[in-house]
Protein backbone atom coordinates (compact mmCIF):
# COMPACT_ATOMS: atom_id res chain seq x y z
CA UNK A 1 0.00 0.00 0.00
CA UNK A 2 1.31 3.42 -0.92
CA UNK A 3 1.87 5.60 2.11
CA UNK A 4 1.40 9.35 1.81
CA UNK A 5 4.44 11.57 2.08
CA UNK A 6 4.51 14.20 4.82
CA UNK A 7 3.50 17.03 2.44
CA UNK A 8 0.69 14.94 0.92
CA UNK A 9 -0.51 14.02 4.38
CA UNK A 10 -0.52 17.65 5.45
CA UNK A 11 -2.45 18.83 2.41
CA UNK A 12 -4.93 15.98 2.85
CA UNK A 13 -5.48 16.92 6.50
CA UNK A 14 -6.00 20.54 5.53
CA UNK A 15 -8.54 19.49 2.93
CA UNK A 16 -10.23 17.19 5.43
CA UNK A 17 -10.67 20.07 7.89
CA UNK A 18 -12.67 21.99 5.31
CA UNK A 19 -14.48 19.32 3.26
CA UNK A 20 -17.62 17.98 4.95
CA UNK A 21 -18.12 15.36 2.23
CA UNK A 22 -14.68 13.86 2.82
CA UNK A 23 -15.15 13.97 6.59
CA UNK A 24 -18.36 12.01 6.20
CA UNK A 25 -16.70 9.56 3.82
CA UNK A 26 -13.85 8.95 6.25
CA UNK A 27 -16.23 8.49 9.17
CA UNK A 28 -18.21 5.95 7.16
CA UNK A 29 -15.09 4.03 6.16
CA UNK A 30 -14.03 3.92 9.81
CA UNK A 31 -17.47 2.71 10.83
CA UNK A 32 -17.35 -0.07 8.22
CA UNK A 33 -13.83 -1.04 9.33
CA UNK A 34 -14.90 -1.18 12.96
CA UNK A 35 -17.99 -3.25 12.20
CA UNK A 36 -16.06 -5.70 10.02
CA UNK A 37 -13.36 -6.11 12.64
CA UNK A 38 -15.83 -7.02 15.35
CA UNK A 39 -15.94 -10.65 16.36
CA UNK A 40 -18.82 -12.70 17.69
CA UNK A 41 -18.90 -14.13 21.17
CA UNK A 42 -18.46 -17.89 20.76
CA UNK A 43 -20.42 -20.38 22.82
CA UNK A 44 -18.82 -22.79 25.27
CA UNK A 45 -18.07 -25.83 23.16
CA UNK A 46 -14.80 -27.35 24.37
CA UNK A 47 -16.49 -30.00 26.49
CA UNK A 48 -19.02 -30.97 23.81
CA UNK A 49 -16.33 -31.21 21.13
CA UNK A 50 -14.00 -33.31 23.26
CA UNK A 51 -16.86 -35.63 24.23
CA UNK A 52 -17.76 -36.18 20.59
CA UNK A 53 -14.13 -36.68 19.61
CA UNK A 54 -13.71 -39.32 22.32
CA UNK A 55 -16.89 -41.04 21.15
CA UNK A 56 -15.76 -41.08 17.51
CA UNK A 57 -12.33 -42.38 18.49
CA UNK A 58 -13.85 -45.19 20.55
CA UNK A 59 -16.07 -46.33 17.67
CA UNK A 60 -14.38 -48.72 15.31
CA UNK A 61 -15.71 -48.83 11.75
CA UNK A 62 -18.12 -51.76 11.57
CA UNK A 63 -18.84 -53.48 8.30
CA UNK A 64 -22.33 -54.94 8.18
CA UNK A 65 -24.29 -56.37 5.27
CA UNK A 66 -26.09 -53.02 5.17
CA UNK A 67 -22.82 -51.34 4.17
CA UNK A 68 -22.88 -53.45 1.07
CA UNK A 69 -26.18 -52.00 -0.17
CA UNK A 70 -24.79 -48.61 -1.27
CA UNK A 71 -21.65 -50.36 -2.52
CA UNK A 72 -23.70 -52.63 -4.74
CA UNK A 73 -25.76 -49.67 -5.91
CA UNK A 74 -22.65 -47.81 -6.99
CA UNK A 75 -21.30 -50.96 -8.59
CA UNK A 76 -24.47 -51.40 -10.64
CA UNK A 77 -24.35 -47.77 -11.74
CA UNK A 78 -20.68 -48.17 -12.67
CA UNK A 79 -21.39 -51.29 -14.68
CA UNK A 80 -24.27 -49.71 -16.55
CA UNK A 81 -22.23 -46.58 -17.23
CA UNK A 82 -19.39 -48.74 -18.52
CA UNK A 83 -21.60 -50.71 -20.89
CA UNK A 84 -23.62 -47.74 -22.09
CA UNK A 85 -20.63 -45.42 -22.39
CA UNK A 86 -18.44 -47.79 -24.35
CA UNK A 87 -21.32 -48.97 -26.52
CA UNK A 88 -22.35 -45.43 -27.38
CA UNK A 89 -18.75 -44.47 -28.07
CA UNK A 90 -18.44 -47.47 -30.34
CA UNK A 91 -21.52 -46.54 -32.34
CA UNK A 92 -20.74 -42.84 -32.82
CA UNK A 93 -19.88 -42.40 -36.53
CA UNK A 94 -16.74 -40.32 -36.02
CA UNK A 95 -15.77 -40.79 -39.67
CA UNK A 96 -19.00 -39.11 -40.77
CA UNK A 97 -18.78 -36.32 -38.20
CA UNK A 98 -15.21 -35.53 -39.20
CA UNK A 99 -16.12 -35.86 -42.90
CA UNK A 100 -13.03 -37.91 -43.69
CA UNK A 101 -14.88 -40.81 -45.18
CA UNK A 102 -12.96 -41.08 -48.45
CA UNK A 103 -9.58 -41.55 -46.72
CA UNK A 104 -10.64 -43.79 -43.80
CA UNK A 105 -12.24 -47.16 -44.38
CA UNK A 106 -15.75 -47.70 -43.01
CA UNK A 107 -15.45 -48.76 -39.37
CA UNK A 108 -19.14 -49.18 -38.69
CA UNK A 109 -19.54 -52.01 -36.16
CA UNK A 110 -20.66 -55.42 -37.31
CA UNK A 111 -24.09 -56.67 -36.27
CA UNK A 112 -22.61 -59.23 -33.82
CA UNK A 113 -20.19 -57.74 -31.27
CA UNK A 114 -16.66 -59.07 -31.58
CA UNK A 115 -14.76 -60.71 -28.71
CA UNK A 116 -12.41 -57.73 -28.44
CA UNK A 117 -15.38 -55.41 -28.13
CA UNK A 118 -16.84 -57.52 -25.30
CA UNK A 119 -13.47 -57.69 -23.53
CA UNK A 120 -13.05 -53.90 -23.72
CA UNK A 121 -16.58 -53.26 -22.49
CA UNK A 122 -16.25 -55.88 -19.74
CA UNK A 123 -12.90 -54.51 -18.53
CA UNK A 124 -14.21 -50.97 -18.44
CA UNK A 125 -17.26 -52.13 -16.49
CA UNK A 126 -15.13 -54.08 -14.01
CA UNK A 127 -12.84 -51.09 -13.47
CA UNK A 128 -15.80 -48.82 -12.80
CA UNK A 129 -17.32 -51.43 -10.49
CA UNK A 130 -14.14 -51.68 -8.42
CA UNK A 131 -13.81 -47.89 -8.35
CA UNK A 132 -17.38 -47.40 -7.22
CA UNK A 133 -17.06 -50.05 -4.47
CA UNK A 134 -13.95 -48.35 -3.11
CA UNK A 135 -15.67 -44.98 -3.33
CA UNK A 136 -18.80 -46.19 -1.52
CA UNK A 137 -16.77 -47.83 1.25
CA UNK A 138 -14.84 -44.59 1.63
CA UNK A 139 -18.14 -42.68 1.96
CA UNK A 140 -19.36 -45.19 4.52
CA UNK A 141 -16.40 -44.58 6.77
Amino acid at each position, binding site marked *: *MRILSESEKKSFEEHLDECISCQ*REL*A*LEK*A*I*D*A*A*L*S*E*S*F*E*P*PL*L*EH*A*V*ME*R*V*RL*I*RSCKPITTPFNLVPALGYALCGLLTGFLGVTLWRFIPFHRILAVRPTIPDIHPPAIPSTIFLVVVGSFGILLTLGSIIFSLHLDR
Partner: protein
Amino acid sequence: MKTKEYDVVELVKRAQAGDDLALSELITIHKRLVFTIIMRMVNDYHTSQDLTQDTFIKVCLNIHRVNDSNKFCAWICRIAKNIAYDHLRKEKRHRLVPLHEISEQVGENTMKHKRKSIIIQDALTRLSIKDRMLLSLAYLEGLALADVAEIMKIPLRNIRISVHRARVRLRRQLEGREDELMST
Protein backbone atom coordinates in the same frame (compact mmCIF):
# COMPACT_ATOMS: atom_id res chain seq x y z
CA MET B 1 2.42 -12.09 20.16
CA LYS B 2 5.55 -14.15 19.74
CA THR B 3 4.84 -15.99 22.99
CA LYS B 4 1.29 -16.70 21.84
CA GLU B 5 2.52 -18.18 18.55
CA TYR B 6 5.08 -20.23 20.43
CA ASP B 7 2.33 -21.51 22.72
CA VAL B 8 0.21 -22.58 19.77
CA VAL B 9 3.15 -24.45 18.22
CA GLU B 10 3.78 -26.22 21.53
CA LEU B 11 0.10 -27.01 21.96
CA VAL B 12 -0.11 -28.45 18.44
CA LYS B 13 2.87 -30.68 19.16
CA ARG B 14 1.34 -31.85 22.42
CA ALA B 15 -2.02 -32.44 20.76
CA GLN B 16 -0.35 -34.47 18.02
CA ALA B 17 1.25 -36.57 20.75
CA GLY B 18 -2.25 -37.35 22.07
CA ASP B 19 -2.69 -34.72 24.79
CA ASP B 20 -6.43 -33.96 24.96
CA LEU B 21 -5.87 -31.02 27.30
CA ALA B 22 -3.77 -29.34 24.61
CA LEU B 23 -6.55 -29.95 22.09
CA SER B 24 -9.04 -28.34 24.43
CA GLU B 25 -6.75 -25.32 24.86
CA LEU B 26 -6.38 -25.00 21.09
CA ILE B 27 -10.18 -24.92 20.80
CA THR B 28 -10.37 -22.18 23.44
CA ILE B 29 -7.76 -20.10 21.61
CA HIS B 30 -9.32 -20.40 18.15
CA LYS B 31 -13.04 -20.67 18.81
CA ARG B 32 -13.73 -16.93 18.53
CA LEU B 33 -11.99 -16.79 15.18
CA VAL B 34 -13.79 -19.84 13.79
CA PHE B 35 -17.17 -18.83 15.18
CA THR B 36 -16.83 -15.34 13.68
CA ILE B 37 -15.92 -16.68 10.23
CA ILE B 38 -18.84 -19.10 10.23
CA MET B 39 -21.27 -16.60 11.70
CA ARG B 40 -20.36 -14.07 8.99
CA MET B 41 -20.98 -16.71 6.34
CA VAL B 42 -24.08 -18.42 7.69
CA ASN B 43 -25.67 -15.56 9.62
CA ASP B 44 -27.48 -17.84 12.01
CA TYR B 45 -26.37 -18.30 15.61
CA HIS B 46 -27.46 -21.90 16.15
CA THR B 47 -26.23 -23.15 12.79
CA SER B 48 -22.91 -21.39 13.38
CA GLN B 49 -22.66 -23.07 16.76
CA ASP B 50 -23.13 -26.51 15.15
CA LEU B 51 -20.74 -25.79 12.31
CA THR B 52 -18.09 -24.47 14.71
CA GLN B 53 -18.39 -27.69 16.64
CA ASP B 54 -18.06 -29.71 13.41
CA THR B 55 -14.97 -27.69 12.48
CA PHE B 56 -13.25 -28.46 15.77
CA ILE B 57 -14.17 -32.13 15.62
CA LYS B 58 -12.55 -32.28 12.20
CA VAL B 59 -9.53 -30.41 13.57
CA CYS B 60 -9.17 -32.81 16.50
CA LEU B 61 -9.47 -35.90 14.32
CA ASN B 62 -6.99 -34.65 11.72
CA ILE B 63 -4.47 -32.77 13.83
CA HIS B 64 -1.81 -35.38 13.00
CA ARG B 65 -1.89 -34.03 9.41
CA VAL B 66 -0.53 -30.62 10.43
CA ASN B 67 3.04 -30.43 9.21
CA ASP B 68 3.76 -26.77 9.80
CA SER B 69 2.48 -25.75 13.23
CA ASN B 70 3.07 -22.07 12.40
CA LYS B 71 0.29 -22.30 9.83
CA PHE B 72 -2.13 -23.98 12.23
CA CYS B 73 -4.40 -20.94 12.35
CA ALA B 74 -4.66 -20.77 8.56
CA TRP B 75 -5.32 -24.51 8.47
CA ILE B 76 -8.22 -24.19 10.93
CA CYS B 77 -9.63 -21.26 8.95
CA ARG B 78 -9.48 -23.32 5.76
CA ILE B 79 -11.44 -26.11 7.44
CA ALA B 80 -14.00 -23.59 8.73
CA LYS B 81 -14.28 -22.09 5.26
CA ASN B 82 -14.86 -25.49 3.66
CA ILE B 83 -17.46 -26.44 6.25
CA ALA B 84 -19.29 -23.14 5.77
CA TYR B 85 -19.17 -23.53 1.96
CA ASP B 86 -20.48 -27.10 2.21
CA HIS B 87 -23.32 -25.96 4.41
CA LEU B 88 -24.28 -23.13 2.06
CA ARG B 89 -24.09 -25.51 -0.90
CA LYS B 90 -26.42 -27.93 0.88
CA GLU B 91 -28.80 -25.14 1.75
CA LYS B 92 -28.73 -24.14 -1.92
CA ARG B 93 -30.03 -20.74 -1.10
CA HIS B 94 -28.60 -17.99 0.99
CA ARG B 95 -31.39 -17.12 3.30
CA LEU B 96 -31.46 -13.46 4.14
CA VAL B 97 -32.17 -13.14 7.81
CA PRO B 98 -34.40 -10.13 8.41
CA LEU B 99 -33.28 -7.67 11.04
CA HIS B 100 -36.18 -8.42 13.36
CA GLU B 101 -35.20 -12.10 13.32
CA ILE B 102 -31.62 -11.25 14.24
CA SER B 103 -32.86 -9.11 17.09
CA GLU B 104 -34.77 -12.11 18.41
CA GLN B 105 -31.61 -14.19 18.25
CA VAL B 106 -29.26 -11.79 19.95
CA GLY B 107 -31.69 -10.20 22.39
CA GLU B 108 -33.07 -6.68 22.48
CA ASN B 109 -30.41 -5.17 24.74
CA THR B 110 -27.54 -6.55 22.71
CA MET B 111 -29.35 -5.40 19.59
CA LYS B 112 -29.04 -1.76 20.59
CA HIS B 113 -25.29 -2.06 21.08
CA LYS B 114 -24.67 -4.26 18.10
CA ARG B 115 -26.81 -2.45 15.56
CA LYS B 116 -23.78 -1.37 13.50
CA SER B 117 -22.59 -4.94 13.32
CA ILE B 118 -26.05 -6.13 12.31
CA ILE B 119 -26.26 -3.60 9.47
CA ILE B 120 -22.92 -4.84 8.15
CA GLN B 121 -23.97 -8.45 8.57
CA ASP B 122 -27.17 -7.74 6.66
CA ALA B 123 -25.17 -6.17 3.81
CA LEU B 124 -22.69 -9.06 3.84
CA THR B 125 -25.46 -11.61 3.29
CA ARG B 126 -26.27 -9.85 0.03
CA LEU B 127 -22.75 -10.37 -1.30
CA SER B 128 -21.44 -13.48 -3.04
CA ILE B 129 -20.08 -16.27 -0.83
CA LYS B 130 -16.54 -15.51 -1.98
CA ASP B 131 -16.77 -11.79 -1.20
CA ARG B 132 -18.32 -12.52 2.16
CA MET B 133 -15.56 -14.95 3.08
CA LEU B 134 -12.85 -12.62 1.80
CA LEU B 135 -14.08 -9.69 3.89
CA SER B 136 -14.64 -11.87 6.95
CA LEU B 137 -11.08 -13.16 6.81
CA ALA B 138 -9.36 -9.93 5.81
CA TYR B 139 -10.63 -8.02 8.82
CA LEU B 140 -10.07 -10.73 11.40
CA GLU B 141 -7.49 -10.02 14.02
CA GLY B 142 -4.57 -12.42 13.91
CA LEU B 143 -4.79 -13.32 10.24
CA ALA B 144 -2.21 -11.88 7.87
CA LEU B 145 -3.08 -11.12 4.26
CA ALA B 146 -0.74 -13.94 3.23
CA ASP B 147 -2.89 -16.33 5.29
CA VAL B 148 -6.05 -14.97 3.69
CA ALA B 149 -4.51 -15.47 0.24
CA GLU B 150 -3.62 -19.03 1.12
CA ILE B 151 -7.04 -19.84 2.56
CA MET B 152 -8.87 -18.29 -0.40
CA LYS B 153 -6.41 -19.71 -2.94
CA ILE B 154 -5.82 -16.26 -4.41
CA PRO B 155 -2.29 -15.18 -5.46
CA LEU B 156 -0.75 -12.94 -2.81
CA ARG B 157 -0.19 -10.14 -5.33
CA ASN B 158 -3.96 -10.05 -6.07
CA ILE B 159 -5.29 -10.27 -2.55
CA ARG B 160 -5.36 -6.52 -1.82
CA ILE B 161 -7.27 -5.70 -4.97
CA SER B 162 -9.69 -8.62 -4.35
CA VAL B 163 -10.42 -7.32 -0.85
CA HIS B 164 -10.79 -3.79 -2.19
CA ARG B 165 -13.29 -4.91 -4.85
CA ALA B 166 -15.27 -6.91 -2.29
CA ARG B 167 -15.34 -3.84 -0.06
CA VAL B 168 -16.60 -1.66 -2.91
CA ARG B 169 -19.42 -4.14 -3.48
CA LEU B 170 -20.16 -4.10 0.27
CA ARG B 171 -20.27 -0.34 0.19
CA ARG B 172 -22.80 -0.53 -2.66
CA GLN B 173 -24.99 -2.75 -0.48
CA LEU B 174 -24.81 -0.18 2.30
CA GLU B 175 -26.13 2.63 0.13
CA GLY B 176 -28.98 4.44 1.82
CA ARG B 177 -28.00 3.13 5.26
CA GLU B 178 -24.88 5.25 5.77
CA ASP B 179 -26.51 7.58 8.30
CA GLU B 180 -27.87 4.64 10.25
CA LEU B 181 -24.43 3.07 10.29
CA MET B 182 -22.69 6.22 11.48
CA SER B 183 -25.33 7.26 14.00
CA THR B 184 -25.08 4.07 16.09
